[in-house]
C-alpha cells in the first residue's frame, strides 16, 4: 500500500485508540447488500418502517448533516445503534451542539460518531461534546492520534464528557477523568 492511499484512508478512532469499523455507508438498505451494519442518510432512515428497524438483524445507523434537525430521532433513540454527525468543514460547529444535546440532554447511549473534516485540533472538543468515535482521514490527525498526542489541556473551564469536577474547584471547572 502506498503512503498516499494509507494517508487518505478513513480510519475509525475512539478514546481507546483505532478500531475496526463494521459499518458501511449506503443510500438505502437495498443498496447496502448484506452488510451487517449500515449507516443511512437521515431521510432514508426516517423512511424505514418502524418494524423493519426493530426486527432487522443488522445494525442500522443514521447520518445527520449539520442543517438537518435531530428532533425526529429523539423518541427513537433507544433503537438507534449509531448516529453519525457530519462536519463538512472543521469550522461548521453545529454538530457539537447536537452531540451535546444527544448525549447530555437525551441520554443517547449508542455510538455517536463524528465524520467529515476531523482535524487534530478539534479532537478534544469532539470527545468533550460527547462523540464516542471519530472518522479520521487527515494525515496529521492520524499521525498525532497514533502517537496519542491529542493537543489536550490539563484542565477545562466547562462541564463536558470524560471529565470530573475538581475537588474544591469552581463549579464550572473540570479536569480529565481518570
Amino acid at each position, binding site marked *: 500500500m502506498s503512503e498516499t492511499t494509507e494517508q487518505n484512508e478513513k480510519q475509525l478512532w475512539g478514546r481507546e485508540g483505532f478500531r475496526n469499523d463494521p459499518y458501511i455507508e449506503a443510500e438505502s438498505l437495498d443498496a447496502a447488500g448484506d452488510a451487517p451494519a449500515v449507516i443511512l442518510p437521515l431521510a432514508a432512515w426516517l423512511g424505514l418502517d418502524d418494524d423493519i428497524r426493530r426486527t432487522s438483524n443488522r445494525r442500522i445507523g443514521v447520518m445527520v448533516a449539520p442543517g438537518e434537525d435531530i428532533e425526529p430521532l429523539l423518541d427513537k433513540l433507544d433503537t438507534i445503534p449509531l448516529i453519525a454527525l457530519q462536519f463538512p468543514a472543521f469550522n461548521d460547529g453545529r454538530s457539537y*451542539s447536537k452531540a451535546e444535546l444527544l448525549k447530555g440532554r437525551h441520554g443517547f447511549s449508542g455510538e455517536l460518531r463524528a465524520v467529515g473534516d476531523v482535524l487534530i485540533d478539534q479532537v478534544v472538543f469532539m470527545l468533550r461534546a460527547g462523540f464516542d468515535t471519530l472518522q479520521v482521514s487527515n494525515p496529521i490527525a492520524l499521525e498525532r492520534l497514533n502517537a496519542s498526542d491529542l*493537543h489536550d*489541556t490539563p*484542565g477545562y*473551564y466547562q462541564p463536558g464528557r470524560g471529565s470530573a469536577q475538581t475537588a474544591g474547584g*469552581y*463549579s*464550572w471547572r473540570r479536569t480529565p477523568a481518570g
Partner: protein
Amino acid sequence: MYRYDEFDHAFVAARVEQFKDQVQRRLSGELTEDQFKPLRLMNGVYLQLHAYMLRVAVPYGTLSAKQMRKLGSIARVYDRGYGHFTTRQNIQYNWPALGDIPKILDELAEVEMHAMQTSGNCIRNVTADHFAGAAADEVADPRPFAEILRQWSSLHPEFSFLPRKFKIAVTGAEHDRAAIQTHDIGLHLKKNAAGELGFGVYIGGGQGRTPMVAKNIRDFLPAEDLLSYTTAIVRVYNLHGRRDNKYKARIKILVHETGTEELTRQIEAEWRALKESDLKLPQGDINAIDTYFRPPVLPERPEGWGTLAVAKRADAGFAAWVDQNVTPHRHPDYGVVTISLKPIGGIPGDASAEQMELVADIAEKFSQDEIRVSHEQNLVLPHVALADLRTVYDLLLTDGLATANAGLITDIIACPGLDYCALANARSIPVAQRISERFGAPARQSEIGDLKIKISGCINACGHHHVGHIGILGVEKKGEELYQITLGGSADEITTVGEITGRGFSSEEVVDAIEKIVDTYLGLRTGRQENFLAAYRRVGAAPFKEALYGPVSRAA
C-alpha cells in the same frame, strides 16, 4: 483584580506549548498556510499589510502595573516600540516576527495574560465598563461576572466554531459606558427590589455592514443563571445562525430574521432544560471570584479637596484637565482619571513602550496598582486621590499623556485603517489626525463640548462609526478614498445607529465637512447645556444636510 491559580497557569502554559509546536511546524514547512491560518487566528495572530499582527486580550480592560510594564517591554523587545489599544479592550502589536510570537505568549503568561480568542468565530474577549469598581454611579462591579464568562468561554468545546465571532459586554451602572447594546450579548448588572444581583439581557446588537441595536430579552436574570442562560443563547445561535453568508452570520441577523419574540421563546425553552444543570453558579463561587475584585481600601484623604482647589486656580491647564479627564469616584476623596491616548494630531490608541511604563509607575504609586483600558482607546487610573492629582498630572505631562480632551471632539476613536489593515478600504488615522488638529485649540474644543467622532476604514466598523455622534466611514471609490458621514449615532444606554448624510467626501473635503457640521450645531443649539447629540435628536438631519450639500439637498 483576578489572579491566576495553578489551574489557570497550567491551562495557559499548555496552550502556549501547543502554539510553539504549531509555529515550529509552520516554519519548517510541515504545516501549509491553509492549515496554519485557523491555528494562528485562535492565538490572535493576523497577517496585515506590512507584517503579522498580534492581538492580546486585556480581559474586561483591567491591568496591573506589572502587566502594563510587560506590555511595554514586549513593544520594545519584539516590536517597534509601541502598541495600539483597540475598541475591544485589546492591545495590538503591529510588527512581530512569527518566530517570536511564542516567546511573546510565554512572556504574557508570566503576567497572567494571553491572546486566546482574540480572533476566530468564538466568544471573544469579554469587555466591561472601564470605570468598573470605581465609578460613583455603579450598582455593582461587573468584572467578577466578566471573569466567570472569560473562564467559561475559554476553549469551549461546543462554542469554538460558531457561525461568526461572538462578543459579550457587561456593565454595572445605569449609564452604559460599555456599549452593551452594540454587542451580541449585552449584560446590564443590576439589583432587584430584594437587593439581589441579576442581569438585564440584550441580544443581537452589532455594527458591521448591518448595524443593529440589541433587543432586551430579559429584564432580570438571577446571577446564578448567568452561564446557563448564556449557554442557551449561544446554543440556539450555534444551531440556527446563518452559515451561508458571512455578512449575515452574526446573531443580530438571526434575531432580525427569526423575530425577537420567537427567538426569545427558543432561548427560554433551551434555558428551562439547562437551568438546574451543572452550569448553575453556586453563590460560594460567585463570592470567591468577587473576592478578587474587592475594592481597594482607600485611606481618607480629605486634604485633597483644598489642595486641588488651590492647584486648579494656579494653573488653567491643570484645571481644564481635571474638569475634563477626572470623573467622580465612589469615594469622595478620590477621582477616576482618564489618560487620553489622543494627543492633538496623534494616532488614536497608540502608546509607546515608555508611555506604558510611565503609566505603570504612576498606577503603582497613585492608583492602587490598577489600570483600565477603555473601548474608547484611552487608559484609566481608577483610584487616584484628589490630593495626588497634581502630581499625577505632572508625571503624565512629561510624556504627552495629559491631553485634556476626554469625551471632546478630539477624543476620536479610529481603527488602524488602510495604514495597517488588510481589510481596510481607506485610511482612518490621517483623517483623525487632521480633525484633531483642526479642532485642537482647547478653547474651541471646550466650546463645542461633548462630541464623539468615530472613524472606520471599512464597513466592518471596528472604529464604531455607526454609533459616533459623528461617524465617518472610509470606502474606496474608483481608486480614491471617499468618506461617508453619519450623524446621531450613540452607544450608551440610549443606543442609536447614525444616519448617512448623503454623498461622501474626498479625503481633502472631509475635515471641512466635519467643520460645517460642528458650526451648524453651534449655531442652532439652545445653549452650551445642549450637546451635539441632544441637538441632533431635537432638530434632525435637515439643517446639517443643508449645510453640507446646500438647500436643494439630496434628502429632499
